[in-house]
Protein backbone atom coordinates (compact mmCIF):
# COMPACT_ATOMS: atom_id res chain seq x y z
CA UNK A 1 0.00 0.00 0.00
CA UNK A 2 1.60 3.23 -1.12
CA UNK A 3 1.31 6.13 1.24
CA UNK A 4 2.64 9.55 0.67
CA UNK A 5 3.81 12.28 2.92
CA UNK A 6 0.90 14.56 2.26
CA UNK A 7 -1.61 11.98 3.43
CA UNK A 8 -3.77 13.55 6.11
CA UNK A 9 -3.17 12.06 9.56
CA UNK A 10 -6.94 11.87 10.06
CA UNK A 11 -7.23 9.27 7.35
CA UNK A 12 -5.39 6.06 8.03
CA UNK A 13 -7.89 3.59 9.41
CA UNK A 14 -9.71 2.67 6.25
CA UNK A 15 -7.74 0.37 3.92
CA UNK A 16 -9.99 1.37 0.99
CA UNK A 17 -8.16 4.62 0.46
CA UNK A 18 -7.11 7.83 2.11
CA UNK A 19 -7.39 11.59 1.99
CA UNK A 20 -4.41 13.69 1.00
CA UNK A 21 -3.59 17.32 0.58
CA UNK A 22 -2.44 18.30 -2.90
CA UNK A 23 -1.18 21.87 -2.69
CA UNK A 24 -4.04 22.95 -0.49
CA UNK A 25 -6.70 20.93 -2.33
CA UNK A 26 -8.17 17.95 -0.50
CA UNK A 27 -8.26 14.81 -2.64
CA UNK A 28 -8.97 11.16 -2.02
CA UNK A 29 -6.99 8.22 -3.31
CA UNK A 30 -8.87 4.93 -3.70
CA UNK A 31 -7.20 1.51 -3.80
CA UNK A 32 -8.23 -1.45 -6.02
CA UNK A 33 -9.77 -3.22 -3.03
CA UNK A 34 -12.58 -0.66 -3.17
CA UNK A 35 -12.95 -0.42 -6.95
CA UNK A 36 -15.82 -2.89 -7.11
CA UNK A 37 -17.84 -1.04 -4.47
CA UNK A 38 -17.08 2.33 -6.01
CA UNK A 39 -18.13 1.24 -9.49
CA UNK A 40 -21.33 -0.36 -8.23
CA UNK A 41 -22.28 2.77 -6.30
CA UNK A 42 -21.62 4.84 -9.39
CA UNK A 43 -23.37 2.62 -11.94
CA UNK A 44 -26.42 2.17 -9.73
CA UNK A 45 -26.69 5.92 -9.42
CA UNK A 46 -26.41 5.82 -5.63
CA UNK A 47 -23.73 8.51 -5.59
CA UNK A 48 -25.71 10.80 -7.87
CA UNK A 49 -28.90 10.48 -5.86
CA UNK A 50 -27.10 11.15 -2.60
CA UNK A 51 -25.41 14.20 -4.18
CA UNK A 52 -28.75 15.52 -5.41
CA UNK A 53 -30.31 15.07 -2.01
CA UNK A 54 -27.38 16.87 -0.42
CA UNK A 55 -26.65 13.93 1.88
CA UNK A 56 -23.15 13.10 0.62
CA UNK A 57 -20.34 15.46 -0.35
CA UNK A 58 -20.05 15.68 -4.15
CA UNK A 59 -16.86 14.64 -5.88
CA UNK A 60 -15.37 14.44 -9.34
CA UNK A 61 -13.02 11.81 -10.70
CA UNK A 62 -9.57 13.06 -11.58
CA UNK A 63 -7.56 10.03 -12.45
CA UNK A 64 -7.85 6.28 -12.71
CA UNK A 65 -5.61 3.33 -13.54
CA UNK A 66 -5.30 -0.30 -12.43
CA UNK A 67 -3.65 0.48 -9.13
CA UNK A 68 -5.39 3.62 -7.95
CA UNK A 69 -8.12 6.16 -8.51
CA UNK A 70 -8.12 9.78 -7.38
CA UNK A 71 -11.24 11.79 -6.68
CA UNK A 72 -11.64 15.38 -5.61
CA UNK A 73 -14.49 16.15 -3.23
CA UNK A 74 -16.08 19.57 -3.02
CA UNK A 75 -13.86 21.60 -0.70
CA UNK A 76 -15.30 22.46 2.69
CA UNK A 77 -13.92 25.77 3.98
CA UNK A 78 -14.02 24.89 7.66
CA UNK A 79 -14.49 21.49 9.27
CA UNK A 80 -16.28 21.38 12.60
CA UNK A 81 -15.94 18.32 14.83
CA UNK A 82 -18.63 16.52 16.86
CA UNK A 83 -17.38 18.01 20.14
CA UNK A 84 -18.02 21.45 18.67
CA UNK A 85 -21.63 20.86 17.72
CA UNK A 86 -24.67 22.10 19.56
CA UNK A 87 -27.35 19.62 20.54
CA UNK A 88 -29.47 19.97 17.42
CA UNK A 89 -26.46 19.78 15.13
CA UNK A 90 -25.49 16.56 16.85
CA UNK A 91 -29.01 15.33 16.37
CA UNK A 92 -29.02 16.20 12.68
CA UNK A 93 -25.72 14.37 12.16
CA UNK A 94 -27.14 11.28 13.89
CA UNK A 95 -30.32 11.37 11.81
CA UNK A 96 -28.31 11.84 8.62
CA UNK A 97 -26.28 8.72 9.37
CA UNK A 98 -29.44 6.67 9.95
CA UNK A 99 -31.09 8.07 6.86
CA UNK A 100 -28.07 7.08 4.79
CA UNK A 101 -27.97 3.59 6.28
CA UNK A 102 -31.63 3.07 5.47
CA UNK A 103 -31.15 4.30 1.92
CA UNK A 104 -28.10 2.04 1.57
CA UNK A 105 -29.96 -1.03 2.81
CA UNK A 106 -32.80 -0.37 0.40
CA UNK A 107 -30.24 -0.43 -2.41
CA UNK A 108 -28.26 -3.38 -1.05
CA UNK A 109 -25.41 -1.41 0.40
CA UNK A 110 -24.50 -0.77 4.02
CA UNK A 111 -22.43 1.77 5.91
CA UNK A 112 -19.37 -0.07 7.15
CA UNK A 113 -18.87 2.38 9.99
CA UNK A 114 -20.90 5.04 11.78
CA UNK A 115 -18.32 7.44 13.09
CA UNK A 116 -19.53 10.92 14.00
CA UNK A 117 -16.38 12.24 12.29
CA UNK A 118 -17.88 11.12 8.96
CA UNK A 119 -20.21 14.10 9.19
CA UNK A 120 -19.61 17.83 9.17
CA UNK A 121 -21.63 20.97 8.49
CA UNK A 122 -21.65 22.75 5.17
CA UNK A 123 -24.10 25.17 3.57
CA UNK A 124 -26.41 25.14 6.55
CA UNK A 125 -26.79 21.39 6.90
CA UNK A 126 -25.10 18.21 7.99
CA UNK A 127 -23.30 16.38 5.21
CA UNK A 128 -21.60 12.99 5.05
CA UNK A 129 -17.98 13.39 3.99
CA UNK A 130 -16.59 9.86 3.95
CA UNK A 131 -17.21 8.66 0.39
CA UNK A 132 -15.60 5.28 1.11
CA UNK A 133 -17.89 4.31 3.99
CA UNK A 134 -20.26 2.40 1.73
CA UNK A 135 -19.93 -1.35 1.33
CA UNK A 136 -22.08 -4.11 -0.14
CA UNK A 137 -24.85 -5.42 2.07
CA UNK A 138 -24.36 -9.06 2.89
CA UNK A 139 -27.56 -11.03 3.32
CA UNK A 140 -28.59 -11.47 6.96
CA UNK A 141 -25.54 -9.73 8.36
CA UNK A 142 -26.20 -7.41 11.31
CA UNK A 143 -25.10 -3.78 10.97
CA UNK A 144 -21.36 -3.61 11.64
CA UNK A 145 -21.63 0.08 12.44
CA UNK A 146 -24.31 -0.42 15.10
CA UNK A 147 -22.07 -0.29 18.15
CA UNK A 148 -20.23 2.69 16.74
CA UNK A 149 -23.52 4.46 16.13
CA UNK A 150 -24.48 4.00 19.78
CA UNK A 151 -21.13 5.14 21.18
CA UNK A 152 -20.73 8.03 18.73
CA UNK A 153 -24.29 9.30 18.45
CA UNK A 154 -27.00 7.91 20.70
CA UNK A 155 -24.71 7.85 23.76
CA UNK A 156 -23.60 11.50 23.64
CA UNK A 157 -27.15 12.64 22.82
CA UNK A 158 -28.54 10.77 25.83
CA UNK A 159 -25.86 12.19 28.11
CA UNK A 160 -26.80 15.65 26.85
CA UNK A 161 -30.43 14.89 27.53
CA UNK A 162 -29.86 13.65 31.08
CA UNK A 163 -26.89 15.78 32.13
CA UNK A 164 -27.00 18.90 29.94
CA UNK A 165 -25.58 19.87 26.57
CA UNK A 166 -22.10 20.35 27.99
CA UNK A 167 -21.77 16.55 28.09
CA UNK A 168 -21.31 16.67 24.32
CA UNK A 169 -17.79 17.96 25.00
CA UNK A 170 -16.93 14.53 26.40
CA UNK A 171 -16.55 13.22 22.87
CA UNK A 172 -13.25 15.07 22.57
CA UNK A 173 -11.81 12.74 25.21
CA UNK A 174 -13.25 9.62 23.63
CA UNK A 175 -12.35 9.83 19.98
CA UNK A 176 -13.98 6.47 19.32
CA UNK A 177 -17.18 7.18 21.17
CA UNK A 178 -18.31 7.01 24.80
CA UNK A 179 -17.35 3.61 26.27
CA UNK A 180 -20.53 1.50 26.63
CA UNK A 181 -20.02 0.49 30.25
CA UNK A 182 -19.48 4.07 31.28
CA UNK A 183 -22.45 5.20 29.23
CA UNK A 184 -24.69 2.60 30.82
CA UNK A 185 -23.54 3.60 34.29
CA UNK A 186 -24.15 7.29 33.61
CA UNK A 187 -27.79 6.88 32.66
CA UNK A 188 -30.33 7.07 35.49
CA UNK A 189 -31.83 3.87 36.86
CA UNK A 190 -35.23 4.64 35.38
CA UNK A 191 -33.71 4.37 31.88
CA UNK A 192 -33.62 0.60 32.49
CA UNK A 193 -37.40 0.58 32.50
CA UNK A 194 -37.51 2.05 29.02
CA UNK A 195 -37.40 -0.88 26.57
CA UNK A 196 -35.68 1.23 23.89
CA UNK A 197 -32.94 2.43 26.22
CA UNK A 198 -32.65 -0.90 27.95
CA UNK A 199 -32.01 -2.80 24.73
CA UNK A 200 -29.87 -0.20 22.94
CA UNK A 201 -27.68 0.78 25.88
CA UNK A 202 -27.82 -1.46 28.93
CA UNK A 203 -28.25 -4.78 27.18
CA UNK A 204 -25.72 -3.83 24.53
CA UNK A 205 -23.21 -2.93 27.25
CA UNK A 206 -23.83 -6.27 28.96
CA UNK A 207 -23.41 -8.25 25.76
CA UNK A 208 -20.27 -6.40 24.82
CA UNK A 209 -18.85 -7.00 28.26
CA UNK A 210 -19.71 -10.69 28.12
CA UNK A 211 -18.15 -11.27 24.71
CA UNK A 212 -15.21 -9.03 25.31
CA UNK A 213 -12.88 -11.86 26.31
CA UNK A 214 -14.27 -14.28 23.79
CA UNK A 215 -11.31 -14.58 21.46
CA UNK A 216 -12.48 -17.72 19.71
CA UNK A 217 -15.99 -16.34 19.44
CA UNK A 218 -15.60 -15.59 15.75
CA UNK A 219 -17.04 -19.01 14.99
CA UNK A 220 -20.35 -17.84 16.36
CA UNK A 221 -21.99 -15.99 13.52
CA UNK A 222 -24.69 -13.52 14.34
CA UNK A 223 -27.43 -13.14 11.79
CA UNK A 224 -30.20 -10.62 11.35
CA UNK A 225 -32.81 -10.20 8.66
CA UNK A 226 -32.96 -7.00 6.67
CA UNK A 227 -36.45 -6.31 7.98
CA UNK A 228 -35.12 -6.54 11.54
CA UNK A 229 -32.31 -4.14 10.68
CA UNK A 230 -34.85 -1.69 9.29
CA UNK A 231 -36.68 -1.91 12.62
CA UNK A 232 -33.53 -0.99 14.54
CA UNK A 233 -32.81 1.95 12.28
CA UNK A 234 -36.39 3.22 12.23
CA UNK A 235 -36.74 3.06 15.98
CA UNK A 236 -33.38 4.81 16.51
CA UNK A 237 -34.52 7.53 14.11
CA UNK A 238 -37.89 7.96 15.84
CA UNK A 239 -36.32 8.15 19.27
CA UNK A 240 -33.55 10.59 18.34
CA UNK A 241 -35.87 12.82 16.35
CA UNK A 242 -38.06 13.30 19.41
CA UNK A 243 -35.17 13.91 21.78
CA UNK A 244 -35.08 17.52 23.03
CA UNK A 245 -33.13 19.25 25.76
CA UNK A 246 -34.82 19.92 29.06
CA UNK A 247 -32.86 23.07 29.80
CA UNK A 248 -34.31 26.37 28.70
CA UNK A 249 -32.31 28.51 26.40
CA UNK A 250 -30.44 30.74 28.76
CA UNK A 251 -29.40 33.14 26.02
CA UNK A 252 -32.47 32.70 23.87
CA UNK A 253 -33.50 36.30 24.31
CA UNK A 254 -30.03 37.55 25.04
CA UNK A 255 -30.40 40.85 23.29
CA UNK A 256 -33.51 41.78 25.19
CA UNK A 257 -31.79 40.92 28.46
CA UNK A 258 -28.49 42.74 28.15
CA UNK A 259 -27.82 46.33 28.86
CA UNK A 260 -28.11 47.54 25.29
CA UNK A 261 -30.45 50.28 24.43
CA UNK A 262 -31.91 49.65 20.99
CA UNK A 263 -30.05 52.53 19.42
CA UNK A 264 -26.80 51.20 20.86
CA UNK A 265 -27.42 47.88 19.14
CA UNK A 266 -28.15 49.71 15.90
CA UNK A 267 -25.10 51.91 16.16
CA UNK A 268 -22.91 48.96 16.89
CA UNK A 269 -24.22 46.98 13.94
CA UNK A 270 -23.89 50.06 11.70
CA UNK A 271 -20.21 50.36 12.55
CA UNK A 272 -19.67 46.67 11.89
CA UNK A 273 -21.50 46.98 8.61
CA UNK A 274 -19.52 49.97 7.47
CA UNK A 275 -16.17 48.45 8.37
CA UNK A 276 -16.85 45.00 6.97
CA UNK A 277 -17.81 46.67 3.69
CA UNK A 278 -14.82 48.96 3.78
CA UNK A 279 -12.33 46.11 4.00
CA UNK A 280 -14.39 44.03 1.54
CA UNK A 281 -14.43 41.02 3.83
CA UNK A 282 -15.39 37.71 2.29
CA UNK A 283 -14.62 35.40 5.17
CA UNK A 284 -15.15 36.28 8.76
CA UNK A 285 -15.27 34.74 12.17
CA UNK A 286 -17.35 36.04 15.04
CA UNK A 287 -15.74 34.82 18.25
CA UNK A 288 -18.32 34.86 21.01
CA UNK A 289 -20.93 35.53 18.35
CA UNK A 290 -23.82 34.28 20.46
CA UNK A 291 -26.77 33.43 18.21
CA UNK A 292 -25.33 35.22 15.18
CA UNK A 293 -27.41 38.38 15.62
CA UNK A 294 -24.66 40.76 14.52
CA UNK A 295 -23.54 38.62 11.60
CA UNK A 296 -27.13 38.65 10.30
CA UNK A 297 -27.12 42.46 10.38
CA UNK A 298 -24.23 42.66 7.92
CA UNK A 299 -25.53 44.01 4.61
CA UNK A 300 -22.92 42.36 2.48
CA UNK A 301 -22.64 39.00 0.86
CA UNK A 302 -20.12 37.42 3.14
CA UNK A 303 -19.08 34.09 1.61
CA UNK A 304 -18.53 32.27 4.86
CA UNK A 305 -19.17 33.44 8.39
CA UNK A 306 -18.03 31.26 11.27
CA UNK A 307 -19.99 32.04 14.41
CA UNK A 308 -18.82 30.39 17.60
CA UNK A 309 -19.84 30.74 21.20
CA UNK A 310 -19.16 28.98 24.48
CA UNK A 311 -22.87 28.56 25.14
CA UNK A 312 -24.44 25.51 23.54
CA UNK A 313 -27.90 27.06 23.73
CA UNK A 314 -26.84 30.19 21.89
CA UNK A 315 -25.29 28.07 19.14
CA UNK A 316 -28.45 26.00 19.06
CA UNK A 317 -30.54 29.10 18.64
CA UNK A 318 -28.23 30.24 15.81
CA UNK A 319 -28.51 26.82 14.20
CA UNK A 320 -32.31 26.94 14.35
CA UNK A 321 -32.32 30.35 12.65
CA UNK A 322 -30.06 28.97 9.92
CA UNK A 323 -32.49 26.10 9.37
CA UNK A 324 -35.60 28.26 9.39
CA UNK A 325 -34.15 31.00 7.15
CA UNK A 326 -32.36 28.43 4.98
CA UNK A 327 -29.09 30.31 5.31
CA UNK A 328 -26.08 28.66 3.73
CA UNK A 329 -23.13 30.90 4.57
CA UNK A 330 -23.03 30.61 8.36
CA UNK A 331 -21.19 27.78 10.11
CA UNK A 332 -22.09 27.75 13.82
CA UNK A 333 -20.12 25.88 16.45
CA UNK A 334 -19.44 25.70 20.17
CA UNK A 335 -16.09 27.04 21.30
CA UNK A 336 -14.62 28.14 24.58
CA UNK A 337 -12.12 30.80 23.61
CA UNK A 338 -10.27 30.25 26.90
CA UNK A 339 -9.82 26.59 26.00
CA UNK A 340 -10.30 26.10 22.26
CA UNK A 341 -10.48 22.54 20.85
CA UNK A 342 -7.02 21.01 20.82
CA UNK A 343 -5.58 18.59 18.31
CA UNK A 344 -6.37 15.02 19.32
CA UNK A 345 -5.91 11.44 18.23
CA UNK A 346 -2.82 9.42 17.39
CA UNK A 347 0.35 11.52 17.47
CA UNK A 348 -2.01 14.40 18.30
CA UNK A 349 -2.71 14.81 14.62
CA UNK A 350 -5.98 13.10 13.75
CA UNK A 351 -8.18 16.10 14.43
CA UNK A 352 -6.80 19.58 14.05
CA UNK A 353 -6.92 22.13 16.80
CA UNK A 354 -9.18 25.14 16.44
CA UNK A 355 -6.17 27.43 16.07
CA UNK A 356 -4.73 25.37 13.19
CA UNK A 357 -8.05 25.27 11.41
CA UNK A 358 -8.79 28.96 11.81
CA UNK A 359 -5.29 29.85 10.57
CA UNK A 360 -5.92 27.81 7.43
CA UNK A 361 -9.35 29.37 7.06
CA UNK A 362 -7.62 32.78 7.30
CA UNK A 363 -10.57 35.08 7.96
CA UNK A 364 -10.39 38.58 6.49
CA UNK A 365 -11.85 39.93 9.67
CA UNK A 366 -12.51 38.71 13.19
CA UNK A 367 -15.36 40.10 15.26
CA UNK A 368 -14.84 40.10 19.00
CA UNK A 369 -17.89 41.80 20.43
CA UNK A 370 -18.55 41.98 24.15
CA UNK A 371 -15.76 39.46 24.62
CA UNK A 372 -12.59 41.17 25.81
CA UNK A 373 -13.88 41.75 29.36
CA UNK A 374 -14.69 38.05 29.68
CA UNK A 375 -11.28 37.04 28.35
CA UNK A 376 -9.41 39.54 30.50
CA UNK A 377 -11.42 39.49 33.70
CA UNK A 378 -13.00 36.02 33.87
CA UNK A 379 -10.10 34.30 32.14
CA UNK A 380 -7.34 36.54 33.56
CA UNK A 381 -5.73 36.69 30.11
CA UNK A 382 -3.47 39.74 29.74
CA UNK A 383 -4.24 42.10 26.82
CA UNK A 384 -0.97 41.20 25.12
CA UNK A 385 -1.85 37.53 25.00
CA UNK A 386 -5.33 38.07 23.59
CA UNK A 387 -3.89 40.51 21.03
CA UNK A 388 -1.36 37.85 19.96
CA UNK A 389 -4.14 35.32 19.69
CA UNK A 390 -6.28 37.45 17.36
CA UNK A 391 -3.26 38.60 15.36
CA UNK A 392 -2.18 35.01 14.72
CA UNK A 393 -5.06 34.34 12.33
CA UNK A 394 -6.84 37.49 11.28
CA UNK A 395 -5.95 40.42 9.08
CA UNK A 396 -8.48 42.81 10.57
CA UNK A 397 -10.09 42.84 13.97
CA UNK A 398 -13.33 44.53 14.96
CA UNK A 399 -13.29 44.58 18.73
CA UNK A 400 -15.58 46.11 21.30
CA UNK A 401 -14.10 47.41 24.52
CA UNK A 402 -16.42 47.86 27.51
CA UNK A 403 -14.88 50.46 29.83
CA UNK A 404 -14.38 50.01 33.55
CA UNK A 405 -17.70 51.66 34.39
CA UNK A 406 -19.73 49.38 32.12
CA UNK A 407 -22.24 47.43 34.21
CA UNK A 408 -20.94 44.02 33.10
CA UNK A 409 -17.34 44.98 33.78
CA UNK A 410 -18.31 46.31 37.20
CA UNK A 411 -20.03 43.03 37.96
CA UNK A 412 -17.03 40.99 36.88
CA UNK A 413 -14.70 43.23 38.89
CA UNK A 414 -16.89 43.03 41.98
CA UNK A 415 -16.79 39.24 41.73
CA UNK A 416 -13.06 39.52 42.31
CA UNK A 417 -13.72 40.83 45.81
CA UNK A 418 -10.57 41.96 47.56
CA UNK A 419 -8.47 41.13 44.52
CA UNK A 420 -10.23 43.80 42.53
CA UNK A 421 -7.10 45.96 42.73
CA UNK A 422 -5.09 43.40 40.79
CA UNK A 423 -7.22 44.22 37.80
CA UNK A 424 -6.27 47.87 37.63
CA UNK A 425 -4.71 47.07 34.25
CA UNK A 426 -8.17 46.77 32.76
CA UNK A 427 -8.62 50.20 31.23
CA UNK A 428 -8.85 51.64 27.77
CA UNK A 429 -5.33 53.15 27.74
CA UNK A 430 -3.68 49.84 28.55
CA UNK A 431 -5.90 48.10 26.03
CA UNK A 432 -4.86 50.45 23.24
CA UNK A 433 -1.23 50.29 24.22
CA UNK A 434 -1.10 46.48 24.28
CA UNK A 435 -3.09 45.97 21.12
CA UNK A 436 -1.00 48.57 19.27
CA UNK A 437 1.93 46.17 19.33
CA UNK A 438 0.12 43.85 16.94
CA UNK A 439 -2.45 46.13 15.40
CA UNK A 440 -2.83 49.55 13.90
CA UNK A 441 -5.94 51.40 15.07
CA UNK A 442 -7.80 52.41 11.92
CA UNK A 443 -11.03 53.62 13.46
CA UNK A 444 -12.51 54.10 16.89
CA UNK A 445 -16.10 54.88 17.79
CA UNK A 446 -17.90 55.26 21.11
CA UNK A 447 -21.36 53.81 21.26
CA UNK A 448 -24.06 56.15 22.52
CA UNK A 449 -25.93 55.30 25.71
CA UNK A 450 -23.29 52.78 26.69
CA UNK A 451 -19.81 52.63 28.16
CA UNK A 452 -18.45 50.78 25.19
CA UNK A 453 -16.04 51.63 22.38
CA UNK A 454 -15.75 49.95 19.00
CA UNK A 455 -12.43 49.58 17.21
CA UNK A 456 -11.39 48.63 13.71
CA UNK A 457 -7.84 47.30 13.89
CA UNK A 458 -5.45 46.20 11.16
CA UNK A 459 -2.82 43.55 11.66
CA UNK A 460 0.68 45.04 11.42
CA UNK A 461 2.06 41.78 10.09
CA UNK A 462 -0.05 42.06 6.98
CA UNK A 463 0.12 38.97 4.84
Amino acid sequence: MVRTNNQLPSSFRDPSGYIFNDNGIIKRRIFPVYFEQYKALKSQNVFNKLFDLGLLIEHEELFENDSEMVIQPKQIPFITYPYEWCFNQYKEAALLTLKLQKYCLEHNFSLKDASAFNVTFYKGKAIFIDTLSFDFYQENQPWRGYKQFITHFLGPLLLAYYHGAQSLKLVSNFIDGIPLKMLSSMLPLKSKLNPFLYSNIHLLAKFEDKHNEDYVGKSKVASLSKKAQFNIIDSLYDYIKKLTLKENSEWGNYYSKTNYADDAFLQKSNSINKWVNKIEAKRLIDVGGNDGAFVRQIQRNVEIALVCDIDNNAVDSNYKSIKLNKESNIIPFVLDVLNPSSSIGFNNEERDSFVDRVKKFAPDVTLALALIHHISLSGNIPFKMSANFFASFSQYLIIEFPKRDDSWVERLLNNKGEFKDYFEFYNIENFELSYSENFEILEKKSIVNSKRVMYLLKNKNDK
Partner: protein
Amino acid sequence: MELIIFLYFDPGLGAMIVQAIVAAVAGFLLFSKNLLYKVKLFFGMVKYDNDELFDDIDVEDSETEAKENGENK
Protein backbone atom coordinates in the same frame (compact mmCIF):
# COMPACT_ATOMS: atom_id res chain seq x y z
CA MET B 1 -18.84 -9.44 -4.79
CA GLU B 2 -16.09 -9.01 -2.29
CA LEU B 3 -16.62 -7.25 1.00
CA ILE B 4 -14.05 -5.20 2.78
CA ILE B 5 -13.52 -8.09 5.16
CA PHE B 6 -10.31 -7.06 6.80
CA LEU B 7 -12.33 -4.64 8.85
CA TYR B 8 -10.37 -1.80 10.28
CA PHE B 9 -12.40 -1.58 13.44
CA ASP B 10 -14.00 -4.10 15.72
CA PRO B 11 -17.78 -4.11 15.29
CA GLY B 12 -18.04 -5.96 18.63
CA LEU B 13 -19.27 -9.55 18.72
CA GLY B 14 -21.69 -8.74 21.52
CA ALA B 15 -23.04 -5.83 19.51
CA MET B 16 -23.59 -8.11 16.52
CA ILE B 17 -25.44 -10.71 18.55
CA VAL B 18 -27.55 -8.30 20.59
CA GLN B 19 -29.01 -6.73 17.46
CA ALA B 20 -31.52 -9.60 17.20
CA ILE B 21 -32.99 -8.61 20.58
CA VAL B 22 -32.75 -4.88 19.87
CA ALA B 23 -34.61 -5.46 16.61
CA ALA B 24 -37.35 -7.45 18.32
CA VAL B 25 -37.88 -4.68 20.88
CA ALA B 26 -37.79 -2.07 18.11
CA GLY B 27 -40.31 -4.06 16.08
CA PHE B 28 -42.65 -4.19 19.04
CA LEU B 29 -42.26 -0.46 19.72
CA LEU B 30 -42.87 0.47 16.10
CA PHE B 31 -45.89 -1.80 15.96
CA SER B 32 -47.46 -0.26 19.05
CA LYS B 33 -46.63 3.23 17.84
CA ASN B 34 -48.41 2.57 14.56
CA LEU B 35 -51.35 1.08 16.39
CA LEU B 36 -51.60 4.11 18.65
CA TYR B 37 -51.35 6.37 15.62
CA LYS B 38 -54.22 4.56 13.92
CA VAL B 39 -56.36 4.81 17.05
CA LYS B 40 -55.60 8.54 17.34
CA LEU B 41 -56.30 9.00 13.65
CA PHE B 42 -59.65 7.26 14.11
CA PHE B 43 -60.61 9.64 16.90
CA GLY B 44 -59.20 12.66 15.08
CA MET B 45 -56.50 13.29 17.65
CA VAL B 46 -53.53 13.52 15.31
CA LYS B 47 -51.72 16.85 15.36
CA TYR B 48 -49.50 17.88 12.50
CA ASP B 49 -46.45 19.90 13.34
CA ASN B 50 -45.16 21.95 10.46
CA ASP B 51 -42.37 23.61 12.40
CA GLU B 52 -40.25 20.51 12.62
CA LEU B 53 -36.55 21.01 12.05
CA PHE B 54 -36.01 17.44 10.89
CA ASP B 55 -37.75 15.45 8.22
CA ASP B 56 -38.51 11.75 7.98
CA ILE B 57 -36.00 9.01 7.52
CA ASP B 58 -37.26 7.88 4.14
CA VAL B 59 -35.49 9.25 1.14
CA GLU B 60 -37.93 8.58 -1.65
CA ASP B 61 -36.53 8.22 -5.10
CA SER B 62 -39.40 10.40 -6.23
CA GLU B 63 -38.04 13.20 -4.09
CA THR B 64 -35.00 13.49 -6.33
CA GLU B 65 -37.07 13.26 -9.46
CA ALA B 66 -39.44 15.94 -8.22
CA LYS B 67 -36.46 18.17 -7.57
CA GLU B 68 -35.03 17.50 -11.00
CA ASN B 69 -38.37 18.26 -12.62
CA GLY B 70 -38.65 21.41 -10.59
CA GLU B 71 -35.26 22.56 -11.79
CA ASN B 72 -36.06 21.83 -15.40
CA LYS B 73 -39.16 23.94 -15.42
